[in-house]
């Protein structure tokens, strides 16, 4: 230690300790540096800059007008912004529980090799996930069109009157949920299949030998053991729902009467249509805080109800 200090003071020609350490570990540090440099420039700095931006009124060009916390005060009273948050929450409850449940069931059926051609079914269910959401959104708009869409034509054959899929507040939200399930069911099924492969099949077999039905084994053994994966999938879905942009932008244009506008949709419009950059930055901050809060709350809630403890 004493020798190190003497070296630090320059009494010897060896480099100081921290520089020696850096030199010794130069390769791994060099290898990870691209990430941290890009992260600093394109994430950390913008987040700081965004706060400064949120304290200003600025149309994107010309001088910035310092307004203090006025943007945040206005945001607190902005019913359009808060209803976009509510829309995301409603959408979440419309499709995520159903989608996650279906994904677990399908994965359990495929994993049990109860059906043949397991790989084929997985492929067919997964394939929507690789589709451009712009292309899929327009196609869904055609299929769900009230007057000429394929779905209402099919319903007419069954003597069901035309459903206003995209023209009614609640139906538009359900339609958006349908698009999300179509696009993400396969992805979630693949996640659950991955989770199931870590569960030894003997557990389910043993339960069946003990007289449990397939449905009992599913609820009592498969679902509890899949809990970590379900938690992971639901967390992704929360972030995904609150970050949704392309789907409402293409399928419903946020309508009718703003019923399917999401927070990111709002931020986008505030920035590029209203040209209120400072206000959009404030929206981004509140949006971020809410996402972090929901994610933490969800982890806390689910870990508390762990049946193992």
């Amino acid at each position, binding site marked *: 230690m004493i020798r190190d200090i003497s070296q630090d003071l320059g009494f010897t020609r060896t480099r100081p300790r921290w520089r020696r350490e850096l030199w010794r570990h130069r390769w791994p540090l060099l290898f990870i540096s691209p990430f941290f440099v890009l992260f600093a420039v394109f994430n950390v700095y913008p987040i700081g800059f965004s706060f400064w931006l949120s304290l200003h009124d600025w149309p994107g060009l010309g001088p910035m007008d310092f307004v203090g916390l006025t943007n945040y005060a206005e945001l607190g009273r902005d019913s359009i912004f808060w209803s976009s948050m509510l829309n995301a929450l409603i959408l979440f409850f419309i499709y995520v529980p159903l989608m996650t449940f279906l994904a677990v069931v399908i994965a359990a059926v495929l994993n049990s090799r109860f059906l043949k051609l397991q790989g084929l079914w997985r492929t067919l269910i997964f394939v929507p996930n690789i589709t*451009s959401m712009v292309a899929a959104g327009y196609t869904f708009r055609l299929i769900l069109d009230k007057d000429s869409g394929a779905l209402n034509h099919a319903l007419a054959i069954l003597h069901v009157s035309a459903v206003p899929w995209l023209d009614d507040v609640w139906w538009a939200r359900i339609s958006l949920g349908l698009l999300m399930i179509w696009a993400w069911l396969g992805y979630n099924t693949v996640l659950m299949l991955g989770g199931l492969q870590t569960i030894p099949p003997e557990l389910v077999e043993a339960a069946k030998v003990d007289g449990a039905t397939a449905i009992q084994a599913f609820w009592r053994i498969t679902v509890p053991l899949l809990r970590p994966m379900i938690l992971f999938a639901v967390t992704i879905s929360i972030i995904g729902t609150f970050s949704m942009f392309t789907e409402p932008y293409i399928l419903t244009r946020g309508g009718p009467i703003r019923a399917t506008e999401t927070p990111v949709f709002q931020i986008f419009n505030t920035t590029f249509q209203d040209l209120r950059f400072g206000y959009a930055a404030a929206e981004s901050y509140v949006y971020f805080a809410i996402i972090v809060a929901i994610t933490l709350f969800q982890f806390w809630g689910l870990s508390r109800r762990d049946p193992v403890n």
Partner: protein
Amino acid sequence: MRITLDKPIAYTAIIALSLVMLFPFTWMLSSSLKPFSEIFAGNSFLPEQPTLANYQSLFEQNNAVLKLWNSFYIAAAATAISVFLCALGGYAFAKFRFPGRGLLFSLMLASMALPFAVVMVPLFVMMRNVFHWIDTPWPLIIPGAANAFGIFFMRQYMLSVPDEMLDAARVDGASEFRIFWRIVLPTSVPGLISLSIIFFMSSWNNFLWPLAILHSDSMQTVPVMLNSLQGPPGRTAFDVLMAGSVVSVLPMLVIFLILQRRLVAGITSGAIKG
């Protein structure tokens, strides 16, 4: 008796589900071959007067080849750079001990929870006022070039590269970068392919950020072109749009059908944390 009854139900359900999943693709394809009036007459599933006029209009009037090329070279460049940098970072986290490693790794993982929309506004301002990169491909390539998911993914993959192999190369006097390039990368090819598919597809299908960045017609990627075909309310050119949608989906479909095993492996191993 129960088993004989369960199986037909399960098969019916899974076949019905698969048909539902496929239906939008078939509708997209069949609509793209219909004249505009027939799309909204909506009388038949198959086109009554099949025509390639929509594709003709897409390629002749909307310069779709250029937009496909834009989408392709941006996705290819972004994928090549990202996969390389992620492999480099993943290798360092998997095979080296260095001070601050745990902290840096946790910081990197935490950054994955940061939604893009949080930095979209300031990043756009930076791209325009500092870098002057509006209407160039750079904002779609550089900011995401080394991302946390990719590094984490490659780290998981490279944990299984045997240390003996690396040490033997060190004894032979190979430089660290040479070891990475000649030993680590070749043994990680399946992981590199998985990550490449994931990156390529997400760049190809990306919409929000290209929509904000690419303004002029000649710079558009395929999804941005589709959006610009939208036109004023009620005038949407759905006939050309469906042709464009087929063109945007088809390349991904081909890649997926060839390499789906690797893609699925990538999704699974990204989720099961080591």
